[in-house]
């Protein structure tokens, strides 16, 4: 490894340590405030940005949904909030331990761990909700607290990373060594990105196509890192996409099925979801959706299937979303509604299994430059 790489690695682990300290400090200051309240005979309380629909607004500059200014007061004196207040305190306490010990856990883990502390979450959705509360209070994604979702997407390509998780600190890995790709989990998300020869990131909606792309050596042929989002991209994957874009300066393109859900998968990667309006680190505003477009269906004479009632309803819903008011976003929705038909990525197989990588992809990559 070159000297340059060596120093980059040092800087990277320093950065990771700093980040951890920041988070621990922040949690501590929250804890101290609650502590002082109790000690002085007061019911502790804090305010939290309101996540009600009326407080979710679209920010044109940031090109994503964010929370507005209204906040809600959470008070432990209010018995209807007391339980969730305690749950949130526990979560902060637990996240503090996780961060301290550099241990990761899943959403499901959190639900079960709570039971050891007499914190009774009724079901996982209740505990998931409290996790979102913690994110909203701290404006940090749960991954910063070492809490990860179960869904795994994967990555393949020439990218060197260096682990920061305990037991692997300093260890490096090249992500093109294993043809099935690498699961994007906690260790990958927290790893430092060292270097890469790739010039573009291709995010693709489906595992099957991901495997095809690896087989067809799309990574080499097009100097790319391939990421399988596994449908709607999990937040860890979106974080990684953002880091690849921001830290490695790689453009990101997105390939989805040719339907309204595919279009929205691309949009969420680009500008986030209303569900995560309380977080700002999850978007890749420069990401480009390159297909499959509704217009491609006609252009490439793809075999189609009819849209369902819910597909159509979804189109109309999205037409109300400010992000769909112009450009291809608007145009493609209109064409979907006109065709009332949709096509999957696999539809290209009609013209041969490699048609998508040989013909379609190059055309789209070319096109992306002008988007």
């Amino acid at each position, binding site marked *: 490894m070159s000297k340059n790489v060596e120093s980059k690695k040092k800087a990277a682990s320093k950065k990771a340590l700093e980040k951890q300290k920041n988070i621990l400090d922040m*949690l*501590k200051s*929250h*804890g*101290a405030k*609650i*502590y*002082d309240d*109790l*000690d002085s*005979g*007061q*019911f*502790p309380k804090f305010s939290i940005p309101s996540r009600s629909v009326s407080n979710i607004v679209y920010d044109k500059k940031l090109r994503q949904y964010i929370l507005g200014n209204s906040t809600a007061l959470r008070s*432990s004196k209010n*018995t209807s909030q*007391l*339980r969730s*207040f*305690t749950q949130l*305190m*526990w979560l*902060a*306490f637990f996240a*503090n*331990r996780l961060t301290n010990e550099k241990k990761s856990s899943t959403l499901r883990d959190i639900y079960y761990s709570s039971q050891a*502390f*007499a*914190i009774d979450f009724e079901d996982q959705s209740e505990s998931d909700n409290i996790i979102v509360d913690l994110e909203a209070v701290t404006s940090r994604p749960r991954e910063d607290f070492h809490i990860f979702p179960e869904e795994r997407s994967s990555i393949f390509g020439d990218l060197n990373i260096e682990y920061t998780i305990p037991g692997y600190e300093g260890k490096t890995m090249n992500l093109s060594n294993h043809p099935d790709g690498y699961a994007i989990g906690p260790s990958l998300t927290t790893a430092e990105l060292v270097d890469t020869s790739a010039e573009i990131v291709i995010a693709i909606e489906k595992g099957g196509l991901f495997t095809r792309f690896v087989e067809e050596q799309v990574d080499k042929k097009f100097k790319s890192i391939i990421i399988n989002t596994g449908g709607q991209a999990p937040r860890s994957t979106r974080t990684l996409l953002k880091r690849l874009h921001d830290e490695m300066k790689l453009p990101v393109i997105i390939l989805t099925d040719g339907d309204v859900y595919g279009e929205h998968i691309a949009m969420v990667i680009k500008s986030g979801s209303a569900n995560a309006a309380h977080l700002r680190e999850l978007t890749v505003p420069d990401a480009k959706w390159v297909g499959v477009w509704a217009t491609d269906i006609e252009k490439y004479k793809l075999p189609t299937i009819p849209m369902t009632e819910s597909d159509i309803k979804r189109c109309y819903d999205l037409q109300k979303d400010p992000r769909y008011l112009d450009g291809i976003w608007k145009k493609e929705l209109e064409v979907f509604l006109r065709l009332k038909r949709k096509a999957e990525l696999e539809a290209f197989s009609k013209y041969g299994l490699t048609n998508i990588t040989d013909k379609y992809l190059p055309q789209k990559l070319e096109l992306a430059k002008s988007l």
Partner: protein
Amino acid sequence: MENGLDACDSKGILPDIHLTIKAVDPEKSDPKPYILTVKDNGPGIESKHVPLAFGTVLYGSKFGLKQARGMFGLGATMAILYGQITTNKPVTVKSSTDAKKSDEYELLLDIQKNKPVILKHKTKDVAKKGLSVSICLEGDYSKAGTKIRDYVYQTSLITPYASITFDDPKGEKYPYPRMINSMPKPPTIIRPHPYGTDVETIRRMMVESQFEIPTIDDAMIEKVRKDLGLAKKNFSFTAIMEKAKKRWKTLSRQVRVIIALMSFLKMDFEKLNKIRIEDIDVPNKKLFYWDFGDSTSKSVEMDPESQYYKQLTNTIQGETLTAFLTKKFQRVGPTTAVKFAEFAGFKPEKRLGTMTNQELAKLSDSLQKFDDFMGPDPSCLAPLGEEPLEKGMKKFFNPDFLTVIQRSASAYSGFPFVVEMGIAYGGDISTRGIKVYRFANRIPLLYDEGSDVVLKVINDIDWSRYKAKGDPPLVIVSHICSTRIPYKTAGKENVADRQEIERELKLAIQFMARKLSVFMNKRGQAEAAKKRANLYAKYVPLIAQFCTELAGKKKEPNFQKILQEEELIENE
């Protein structure tokens, strides 16, 4: 049972009622013959009246206007008749009025003649007063048992001063001991109210107010002599008249009429004995009589100026309208009577006997329309009273909350009525939702509840407004007392929705529901405070634990302060 309770009520005796139902042959399957016996500790019935009371239809001693359970004089006979039709067995009645001798009858009914047939009659020595009736009848206890048990249960609820036992055919015993030892105030017998009368009632009352021309026989003459103090010797006509004038004030109406007749006939007792009065023709002022001596009809003139003439016409033509009203109706004074006469377009001194059918109809009509009569007198009613009702309900349900109310008397169409109600909540009440016990004149109404006015009023109420949401363990007892309950059907099971009754029911329920909601509120607040304190006690220590580690402290914060404060608030 109702008869026994009525009988005890009327004599102020604390009732002991024993009901027994026994299968004649327990091995047989239902329906089968049973022997039903009701025994009471009431006054009994005089021996000679027993066959009549139980062997004829429409024998009732309760015809005066006052509230009693029985009204028609049908109940006992019908039950006996049912037994007789289904099993062809006689009824056994044992009655003792003096706690020494008991008259025991075995009776059948002769339906055609409405007459009792006495099969056996004997007398026995006993130690207790009272009456017992045994009927053999065909029945299906497996089906009817629930209703019978309900009936006994509810009867004892509304008769807390009675001790009632029921021994059922399966050998089960249902004892309901006396809950209070004082009898509620007995009702008084009163005259009818003008609003509650119709043409037929007026006709009947008129007959009572007109006097028959007395038959002049030996017995009557003997009585007149005695009353005049002239028993021994024969006296001349003038002597008799003189004596009568002196004693006039002390004479009965009957005797006065005889004297008046004698004054026109100008006869002494001896002559009077030989004639029969045929007619008194008031308009023509003539008195017709039959002379047994020469077997001819004769007449004498009557002098309209004579005071005796007035005596006779009064008798014949009945009372004046005002006298009739004040004497025959409740709460009508002379002034009201005169006002009414004017309202109805009659002369106040118009005599009832001279009214045509049309005039009678007009009279009856006007009685309904005249607004100035006072409300009917409720003293004839026998509500249970708030205290006994409350005590009874308390013993029955041992509730967490109980309230009762007796509304003041009101009236519909001239019939007075009183509504009394109670609401019990929680405690031993295990049923969910509102359970209603309906009573009319202390009789449980078990059937046909759907169309009853009480149910209607209860259902119309928005109970959630009174904090009784969902299916509260709530019992409502409703007792309507009236000299005439407006039943919807002949079965006497549901009360019609008369506006006046509906109003009283509604006011009673609303009154009680308000009290209930106060109770529920208080209870809710206490519960909420307790719940709050529990929640704090559970969660605050956890918050303390978590923030201690978060803040990097060793010692937990002193959170006891806020817990204690909360406890103080709760205890306030």
